């Protein structure tokens, strides 16, 4: 990043100029000079942070969670799991979603329509259409069922008409999305509790030596089935392990149902999740939060507020939701009228804010400029780095690669996370010395504008 146009880290204020006073651009990719540095830094942090939550999905069968939670609480696996879940679950993806929303506004702000050509709005949708295809590629070809690009593309298509809304209305929309998500979750939960209730009634009747009606027998059977689904299922685990240790075709076919299921029902029921954070990100961008425009006192305040509320909520979430649901599911259902899972969105909004504020404050304090620079590079090629995580992890864990699937312990996975982080930090800096964009960014831009984009510096 020896570009002299680039504002150097640790000089807050310069971004303001490069962010707002530039001449209106025609529909073309953002040049390096226009990038907002802090946006890249935060995106870099989020991108690396996402791997914290994704690595167990790549490396472990899902039975591992139950084993850890039901097992000894003093070992490293449990401690790592507690820390990672409390502090990071949903937050890095949340930050990433916020920056996606901010990036959308930025994309639209930076360009002006050229008469005769496609409008900026059309480019916006083309860009997302390609992102959708990349997301499917990530899920089906690179074999990562936890892909988010597909969801971002579709959620992004809904954001467009809201791009000029004022921050407070965007916050209201975010709250609305959280509310819808909450109501949907609560609906499912009360259905589940209804089944539990029916089970209790049937059992009570059984105690009184009454013969059960057909419905009551059904209720008992139904709940027993639900409870059994919560128990470890070795046959299922073994099958999964056998498939994951297989070759590419085996893993591919094994993942087709999971992938299509995620993409069908994920977007249909779960679109509120990315959407609320995107709206929030648009609002925060509008307020200047991500472009380093607010006074230090505000960032300090959001840091304190974010962590002050977020960490206790995160701990409550981890200990009550995970701790409860995985140890005795039935008792868990009996106990909570509103499940502890319901605080999910709230805790991650606060924690994400805390994380973002922390990054902004470190950036301002200029204590680790080299790290900030490296993170900015990671963030600048976030798309490449995200896909690279899939490629690396699939290659490390799946049968057609080094085949480490379910062969490492939970806490050991984080050594791999560290290694990938280091690689991405170094590789991004080096790459951007020679090239303008990451390779996938370049491909994405070229496809969006349907024209080969300049690549080398």
């Amino acid at each position: 990043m020896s570009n002299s146009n680039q504002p150097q880290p640790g000089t807050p204020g310069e971004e303001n100029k490069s962010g707002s006073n530039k001449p209106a651009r025609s529909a073309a990719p953002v040049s390096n000079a226009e990038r907002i540095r802090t946006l890249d830094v935060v995106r870099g942090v989020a991108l690396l942070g996402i791997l914290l939550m994704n690595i167990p999905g790549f490396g472990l069968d899902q039975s591992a969670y139950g084993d850890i939670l039901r097992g000894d609480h003093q070992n490293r696996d449990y401690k790592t799991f507690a820390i990672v879940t409390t502090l990071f679950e949903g937050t890095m993806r949340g930050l990433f979603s916020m920056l996606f929303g901010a990036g959308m506004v930025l994309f639209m702000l930076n360009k002006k329509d050229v008469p005769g050509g496609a409008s900026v709005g059309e480019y916006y949708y083309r860009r997302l259409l390609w992102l959708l295809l990349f997301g499917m590629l990530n899920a089906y070809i690179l074999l990562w069922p936890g892909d988010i690009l597909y969801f971002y593309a579709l959620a992004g298509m809904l954001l467009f008409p809201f791009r000029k809304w004022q921050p407070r209305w965007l916050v209201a929309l975010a709250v609305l999305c959280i509310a819808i998500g909450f109501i949907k979750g609560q609906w499912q939960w009360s259905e589940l509790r209804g089944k539990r209730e029916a089970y209790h009634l049937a059992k009570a009747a059984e105690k009184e030596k009454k013969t059960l009606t057909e419905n009551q027998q059904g209720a008992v059977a139904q709940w027993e089935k639900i409870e059994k689904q919560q128990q470890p299922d070795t046959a299922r685990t073994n099958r999964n392990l056998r498939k994951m240790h297989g070759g590419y075709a085996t893993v591919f076919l094994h993942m087709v149902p999971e992938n299509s299921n995620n993409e069908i029902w994920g977007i249909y029921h779960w679109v509120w999740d990315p959407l609320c954070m995107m709206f929030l990100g648009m609002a925060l961008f509008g307020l200047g939060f991500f472009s380093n425009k607010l006074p230090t006192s505000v960032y300090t305040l959001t840091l304190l507020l974010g962590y002050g509320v977020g960490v206790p909520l995160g701990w409550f979430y981890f200990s009550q939701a995970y701790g409860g649901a995985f140890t005795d599911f039935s008792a868990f259902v009996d106990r909570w009228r509103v499940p502890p899972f319901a605080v999910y969105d709230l805790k991650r909004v606060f924690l994400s804010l805390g994380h973002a504020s922390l990054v902004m404050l470190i950036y301002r304090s200029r204590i680790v400029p080299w790290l900030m620079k490296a993170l900015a590079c990671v963030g600048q090629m976030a798309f490449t780095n995200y896909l690279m995580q899939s490629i690396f992890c699939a290659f490390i864990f799946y049968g057609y690669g080094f085949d480490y699937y379910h062969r490492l312990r939970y806490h050991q996975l984080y050594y791999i996370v560290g290694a990938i982080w280091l690689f991405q930090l170094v590789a991004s800096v080096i790459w951007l010395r020679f090239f303008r964009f990451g390779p996938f960014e370049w491909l994405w831009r070229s496809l969006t504008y349907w024209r080969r984009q300049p690549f080398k510096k």
Partner: protein
Amino acid sequence: MIYPSGANQPGGYLTGRFSRYFSLDVLRGIALAGMLLISIREFGGFSLNQQLKLELAATGGNYQLWRVFSVLLEGKMMALLSLVFGAGIVLYFSHKKEEVSTAVTDLYIRRQLWLLFFGIVNAILLLWPGDVLFGYGVIGILLFTCWRLSPRWLLLMALLFTIIYCGKNYWNYSDDKKAYGKYLVVTEKEKQFSKDSLTRFREDSTWAAANPAAWAGKKKDTLVKRGDKDTLIRKLLNDSLIKAAAADTLTSREQDDKGAWEGLLRQFKYDSTADKGSQAAMHAGYGKIWSHLLGKTQGREAAWFYRTGIWEIGAMLLLGMALYKWHFFSSRFSRRRYLLIGLLAIAAGLALAWLRQDCRQAQLADYAVYVSARSFPASLAFPFENLLMATGYAALLLWLVRLQPALWLWKIFAAPGQMALTTYLSQTIMATVFFYGYGMGFYGHMPQWQLYAVAAEIWLIQAVFSVFWLRRYRMGPAEWLWHYLIHWKKIAVKYPAEKQGAAPVIPS
């Protein structure tokens, strides 16, 4: 459906009560009418399950009636609507050529998002699980940027989408084939069980007959030790068979494999309990019907759309864009060409339909035999059948419109077609009120031909209403609401005073 009605643009309504896009209105109207004839079955309780019963019987006037309507309309009318929808997108963007900018895109996206919203209302509040507006809303957002492509590219993409749709049908079929293969392995093993048991039994009995004392000693059974030969044999029989049977169990995986194929076979069997269940639910109140239909609605909006809808609608939408760019809809082709395209495409489509029906009957007769003998499913070429017949219909209709016979006849379709959203939503309202339990409750009480008569009745009401409505107003009530939501301001819905009462004119 999304295209601007003549009223929305300067000079549009001045040419008469019908828009400049008369032929598109006619096609849209006919597509909507045809779709109603198919959806009235589900509205009226002539469910897929019931239709299967008819298909299994495969004789009688009722069956022939069903078959004719299915071959001619099912899938084709939605394809026709998608064709017009695609044409409408190009029209929307290209008629504002001088101001193609983000503002136009913005209005377009709002239009689509509100359409999507109307779809949710139609499906989840008005309770029509077969709603298409949701799908059109989504797909219109996904694919609209293709409107700038050249017609040749659009045609290629349309073919690609159709081939993918065929490929998915084939993929599903090959899954069925695989399931049957696994089932055969499991049943083979089961046969082996009884063979094994018999062999074991035979060995045991030979050995026991040879060494009764040793055998009795092994069994440590006093009864047997006493040497009662009858008891001995009875014991032997029991033990050896029961033991064998106990060992002869399938693993849960094998049971799943077996169950999977048996489940597949169930889709070829008439299920009378399902009918009873839906009868009971659909005659209940709103709440009960709502929860009865929710799963179906969500399945269509999410799973069907992802697996099938995007390809099925998308292919025709892209083809519609291509045809529009080739000036197919503005009647620029020669009459002979329309006639030729129409007849050839319909003939080819009917040939494919005939082939499909033939395969379908073979599938129904014995799916196991079908799966082991044939490489392709009946549904393989269905996407092409749709594409050909919808295009053929469009060409034939455009040919007829150019002949300009009986104006009033075209009005019956053009007027409801011009206010398509109103037409579509009011179809749901009329049909649900007529059939569902919270309305008049005719669900499941009418034979097939009466259902078609009800559909015709609904259409008649809509046609008359639309013709009179459009004499006074520039757009339908739902269109007005749509317009209001998009622009967030009201517009005058009446014609300017001096044009009141002018005779409808069809632009040539």
